[in-house]
């Protein structure tokens, strides 16, 4: 039976650095997906994931077992993504074209699904950072609004509004794209 996160955390704090690899194995794929959706760049997403795990390790003593480790880690990751987006905005460099995963087992290049994927990427890119973050946490990570609130620091009502507006905008953009 796999050790629960809290047991792994205790092992790491007890001096077993390699035990942290269990948490990396367990969560790095989900973290990468979240960062990729928020940042739109594979390279930036991998940087954000690396930095977030490092911070999680450094501040592991601040993790409290009454909270889900995944939620705590997500909060660090979301903060890291916000930092990277803010730096990007300060440099006034337009967000790079979205780099969706092209190494998946299914090659969708040139397929209808590939075209839809591009449409969705462009539509997400057009959202505000807050809206994109909210819609990704809600639908990609399937978190509850309470969980989202704990991660983002925003209130539940505000998050519901963000998601609703983001979805409205996404539907409009996807509809426009399908009629183009």
């Amino acid at each position, binding site marked *: 039976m796999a050790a629960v996160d809290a047991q792994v955390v*205790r092992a*790491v*704090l*007890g*001096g*077993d*650095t390699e035990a942290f*690899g269990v948490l*990396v*194995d367990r969560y*790095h*794929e989900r973290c*990468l*997906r979240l960062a*990729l959706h928020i940042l739109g760049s594979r390279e930036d997403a*991998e940087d954000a*994931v*690396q930095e977030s*795990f*490092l*911070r999680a*390790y*450094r*501040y*592991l*003593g*601040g*993790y*409290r077992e009454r909270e889900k480790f995944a939620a*705590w880690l997500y*909060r*660090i990751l979301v*903060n*890291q993504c*916000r*930092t990277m987006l*803010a*730096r990007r905005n300060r440099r006034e460099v337009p967000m790079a074209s979205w780099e969706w*995963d092209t*190494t*998946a087992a299914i090659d969708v290049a040139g397929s209808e*699904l590939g075209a*839809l*994927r591009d449409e*969705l990427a462009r539509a997400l890119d057009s959202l505000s950072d807050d809206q994109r973050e909210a*819609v*990704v946490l*809600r*639908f*990609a990570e*399937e978190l509850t609004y309470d969980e989202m609130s704990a991660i*983002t*620091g*925003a209130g539940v009502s505000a998050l519901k509004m963000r*998601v*609703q507006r983001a*979805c409205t905008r*996404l*539907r409009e953009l*996807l509809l426009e794209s399908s009629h183009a």
Partner: protein
Amino acid sequence: MHDRAGLLPEWALAELRRPVATSDALRERVMARIRADSPAAPPAAQPAAALGGAVVAISHGSSAPRRGLRYQLAGALLALAASVAWLAVDSTILQSRSGLDPARGAPAGRMIVLGDTVNSALHDTLRLVRFVFEAPAAARVAIAGDFNGWSRSATPLADSAGSGVWSVVVALDRESTGYAFVVDDTQWVQPGRMAGSAAPARPIPATPVGGDST
């Protein structure tokens, strides 16, 4: 899940949830950084975290560099109000670290007080203090104390670099003795007493310490 239906097309939802390909290389890069960050000795286990696991250090501006103390207040003159009075102050830094740093094995609750070296005649009236709090997972951090009526929102710290290190500079009078950090509006972390103050930490009134406050 009630808001999912109809908000986005099913194909879009499926696309958002589609797993992304990862590689062993990413995992290894992460672990290589973790190992490089690890001390030779195993990290100490987290001590009892009666105050939310806070580790506190109060240090002098000229202390040797070490992680978390990079945000030092360089120097010394503060223009105060319209009186054109200049207050020479020392770079006193109050630093709180949220949680044990496993890489450093730092003991929680440690507090080092190095006295001020202020030479100004106004030295006994006011001093400039920089509060620093490391909390990469926090959305908001504020400082509350007798200097602001223990308000949990009046004196927010800023993470201007986006590095997870929150700070604010506050001009305090010499009578200020008690303070606490407020993380995400609910978690109170009371490090101890003010640097240079002989008075003990003042209990936080009417609010729980180290737990959620609703």
